[in-house]
Structures are given as structure tokens and as C-alpha cells.
């Protein structure tokens, strides 16, 4: 137990959680058939907003994180009006361009401290451990304040991930989710069935941006340092890979892909020279053998059938 509670493992866990949220944001737009690559841009809006308001305006961290999400959603509302009318590659290129514009602007603004980045951002772990010590939790658990803070951050992030997942799964099973699925399957047919496609595409775009902003803010408070290079197009490629690797057609693909693709590079640290090669080979192999990603709709169907069978068996008392 002591071994697992070291700072390194906890740090990796924090990144897994943040990456899961980021992978989900890519999935959210894919739900309506939109490939949006602007999520690094939205992430940086969330990160900078939360960092600046907590550092300079003394806003409490949870409020700052929420404001980061809102800020990203607000920006998405502005750029979404022209971009959600685009389709396929054109949307991808336009949103990718947006992300790069945001990065270059952040490089040149005073308030973001340019290329030097913002440092000394309030740490989520230490503020959580302060709470913990106020309540006397540290003594009860016999943990030092740093480990306890990180552990609590892991728990908070895990809860957030579960909440976001639950929210999205419920949304997919609602009337809105039906509209999303129809738009993804055939936008034209969806519109002819009386679905306001622009409205629903915008909705998924806004949700995606909001959670990307939240993830960015969490990232800022987890690393206490952000610079524009953290939000380059490379970051978007990572998010997209998580989502596609795990299976971009099912909601569970995003967390699975994010977890695997965060753990693998970490576990290959010992062979630093070959790390990227192995990572690349994994991606090529997966696309060759499972082009839909690890989890696909039929895998999920198999799971649910299996589950149902077991349930009916236990009901029959077998």
C-alpha cells in the first residue's frame, strides 16, 4: 500500500483522469459526427482563466475551475456559429487553426506571461491537504501532507470523471442522445425527421468545449505551471488518439484509450529510446486489427447481452 501511495503513481493517476476528460471532449463532438480539433484551444482558455482568476483575483479554486469551463464554452459559442456549419475535414482544419491561433495569442499576451508561461498557480493538492489537516484527517490517516493532498486530488478527479461519464451516458440515452445519434448517422435524414441539426451540433460542441475548459483548469492546478506549448496541436492529436484507440463509437472507449495511452509511455520510461517506436507500433497494430478501436458497438452489445444472461440466471436461481 505504501508503495502505491508514492508521488509518482499518484501523479500518473492525476494525468489519467485529466486525459480521460480530454478524450471525452473529443468523443462528445464525434457523437454528432463532428471532428473538432480545437480542444487544446478550449483547454488553454480554461487553464489560463482559472489560473489568472485564482492568482490575481483571489477567486476560490472550485469557482475558478468552473469559470474556466464557462469561459471555454463562451468562446465555443462565438467560434461555433461559423464552424458548426462546416463538415468533415473543413471543420477539423478550421478548429485546428483556432487552437493554433489561441496558442500564438497566449504567446504574445502580457496577462498570460507569453512564452515564459504562468507559474505559481495555486496547487489543488496543497489546498486539499490544507482542508484535510483542518479536519484532522492527516493525523487520522497518518499521511504526510504532500501525499495526502495528492491522494485527495486523485479522489476528487476520479469523482469528477465519474460524474462527467454519468452525465454523458444519461444524455446519450435521452431524447437529446437520440438526436445526436441520428445526426451522426445521417445529418440529412435527421433534419428531414424534424431534428434541428444546427442546434444539437452546437450543443455537443459547447459541452465539449466546457469540459475541455474544466480539464485545462484542472491541469493548471495539478501542475502549477502552464505555458502555451502545453496546448499545441500535439495535445489535440493525443486527445484524438485516446478516443480512437479506445473506440470512438462508444463512450467507454475514451476512458479506456486515455488510461492505456497514459500508462504505456510511463511504463516504458526505462527504455526511453524505444518508447515512441513502441507507442507508434501499438497504434499501427491496433488500427490494423481493430480499426474501430478496442471497444466497438458490437463488443458493448456482447457485454450487455452477457450481463443480461447472467442476471436472468441469478433470477431463476441457477
Amino acid at each position, binding site marked *: 500500500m505504501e508503495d502505491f501511495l508514492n508521488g509518482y503513481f499518484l501523479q500518473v493517476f492525476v494525468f489519467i483522469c485529466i486525459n480521460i476528460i480530454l478524450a471525452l471532449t473529443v468523443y462528445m463532438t464525434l457523437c454528432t459526427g463532428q471532428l473538432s480539433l480545437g480542444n487544446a484551444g478550449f483547454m488553454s482558455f480554461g487553464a489560463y482563466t482559472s489560473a489568472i482568476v485564482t492568482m490575481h483575483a483571489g477567486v476560490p479554486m472550485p469557482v475558478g475551475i468552473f469559470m474556466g469551463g464557462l469561459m471555454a464554452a463562451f468562446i465555443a459559442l462565438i467560434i461555433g456559429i461559423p464552424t458548426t456549419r462546416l463538415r468533415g475535414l473543413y471543420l477539423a482544419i478550421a478548429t485546428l487553426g483556432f487552437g493554433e491561433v489561441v496558442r500564438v495569442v497566449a504567446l504574445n499576451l502580457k496577462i498570460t506571461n507569453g512564452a515564459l508561461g504562468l507559474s505559481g498557480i495555486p496547487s489543488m493538492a496543497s489546498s486539499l491537504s490544507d482542508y484535510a489537516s483542518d479536519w484532522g484527517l492527516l493525523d487520522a490517516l497518518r499521511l504526510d501532507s504532500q501525499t495526502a493532498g495528492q491522494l485527495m486530488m486523485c479522489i476528487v478527479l476520479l469523482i469528477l470523471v465519474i460524474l462527467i461519464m454519468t452525465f454523458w451516458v444519461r444524455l446519450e440515452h435521452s431524447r437529446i442522445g437520440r438526436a445526436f445519434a441520428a445526426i451522426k448517422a445521417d445529418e*440529412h435524414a435527421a433534419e*428531414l425527421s424534424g*431534428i434541428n*441539426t444546427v442546434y444539437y451540433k452546437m450543443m455537443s460542441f459547447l459541452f465539449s468545449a466546457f469540459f475541455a475548459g474544466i480539464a485545462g483548469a484542472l491541469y493548471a492546478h495539478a501542475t502549477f505551471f502552464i505555458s502555451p506549448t502545453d496546448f499545441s496541436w500535439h495535445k489535440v492529436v493525443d486527445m484524438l488518439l485516446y478516443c480512437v484507440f479506445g473506440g470512438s463509437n462508444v463512450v467507454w472507449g475514451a476512458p479506456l484509450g486515455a488510461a492505456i495511452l497514459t500508462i504505456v509511455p510511463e511504463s516504458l520510461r526505462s527504455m526511453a529510446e524505444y518508447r515512441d517506436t513502441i507507442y507508434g507500433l501499438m497504434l499501427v497494430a491496433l488500427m490494423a486489427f481493430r480499426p474501430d478501436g478496442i471497444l466497438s458497438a458490437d463488443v458493448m452489445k456482447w457485454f450487455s447481452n452477457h450481463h443480461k444472461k447472467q442476471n436472468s440466471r441469478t433470477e431463476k436461481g441457477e
Partner: protein
Amino acid sequence: MLLEMKDVVAGYGNITALKGISLSVPEGSIVTLIGANGAGKSTTMKTIMGIVKAREGTVAFQGKELKSEKAYQVVREGISLVPEGRQILQNMTVQENLELGAYQRNDSQIGSDMEKIFERFPRLKERRRQYGGTLSGGEQQMLAIGRAVMARPKLLLLDEPSMGLAPLVVQQIFDVIKDIHKTGTTVLLVEQNAQKALQIADYAYVMETGKIVIEGPAADVAQNPQVRAAYLGGRKSS
């Protein structure tokens, strides 16, 4: 008049596909629009639905102009289109496809309407849990019609429902159209199969290169020598 188009000009980019179309569909009738490929029949349908915007002229439904309405709003007004090539959702089940047709409704009769559709198309009932993409062409057409009917339209637009189907299936589809008409739905039917269309229609319009060239009661149009020559194979027999 349920639907009235007046001097509608519409097209795509530089191409003008409709060069001043006027047609009207009285409530409770079956009106057919026949013509060769590229005459502008499908564009007429798309213009009514608001997918293609009319550059000039007006489209009015129940006296209300549809000019600025988007397709989903037109559906809410009470017009449903069974598009050319069917456009059913391949990765959704038959039932999900039908439910989608009722998307803008929130009354309690959606379930009973679906049962009616299953009565009309027993094949769809057997396959209600199958994916749309696994159905045959005729079944897909039935599903597309069923989906459009699920919206409870006052006016049903059908764009070449017989396209690519076996003669026996074509007969079934036309029987279904007559059935739907009997339940009080007005029908505007676009067809290349002029013979079949003229048999069930009350009134007919013949289109050629973006214009209406002949119109009249379906029985008269069927006797028109030009129509017989061009669409009904009349010249061969004489």
C-alpha cells in the same frame, strides 16, 4: 389549397434547376409530378422542404409562406419527405428509425401509430430489431415511408419511391401510397414510372428542364399524345 408554389426559381450555385414552377396541391388529393431525369423534380421537393432555397417566387403551405423555414421547421408544419434513395439510418434498428420519424411529436399515440405501421408492413414488424442496413431495397423503402408517416404529416412528399425496385414490390409500394391517402393524408408523388403514377393520381404535372410543360387531371394527361410518346411508350405501339 394545401400547398401552393408560385413562379419558383431555385437552383444550386450557378445552375438554375427550377425556372419558374407553379403548382398546387389541393387537400385530400394525390398529385403527381412526372418527368425525365434532370427535369427538376427532386429539386422541387427539396425547395418545398427548405433544403434548397427559392431565389424567386413563393411556397405556401396552408396559406403560410415557408420561405425562410429550415427543413426541420417545415416538418413541424406538417410536411414529410420520403427522400430519393430512401436515406434510412443503416446503423439503427427498424424501430429506432421509426421512432426518429416521430421526433418532433410528444403526444401519447406514438406507440399506437407504430403498431399501425407494423400492421401495414408486417415485414418491418418481423425485422423491428434488425439494423436498417440489413433490409432489402423494398423493405428500406417501406421503412422510409413508415418513418415519414410517423411524423403524422398533412402532406406526404414521395421522391421516386419505386426507384430500383422489382415490379411486384413497386405494386406494393403504390398500394401503400393509396392506403395512406385513404387515411386522409395528401400526397405529392414524384415519379419516373409515369404509368403507375398517373393511375393513382388525381392531378398531374409534367416537368421538362426546370419548367412545367403539361398539367391537367391525371386521366387527361395519360391520354396526352406528347406524354404518351415521351413517358408511356405510346409511339412504339402506334
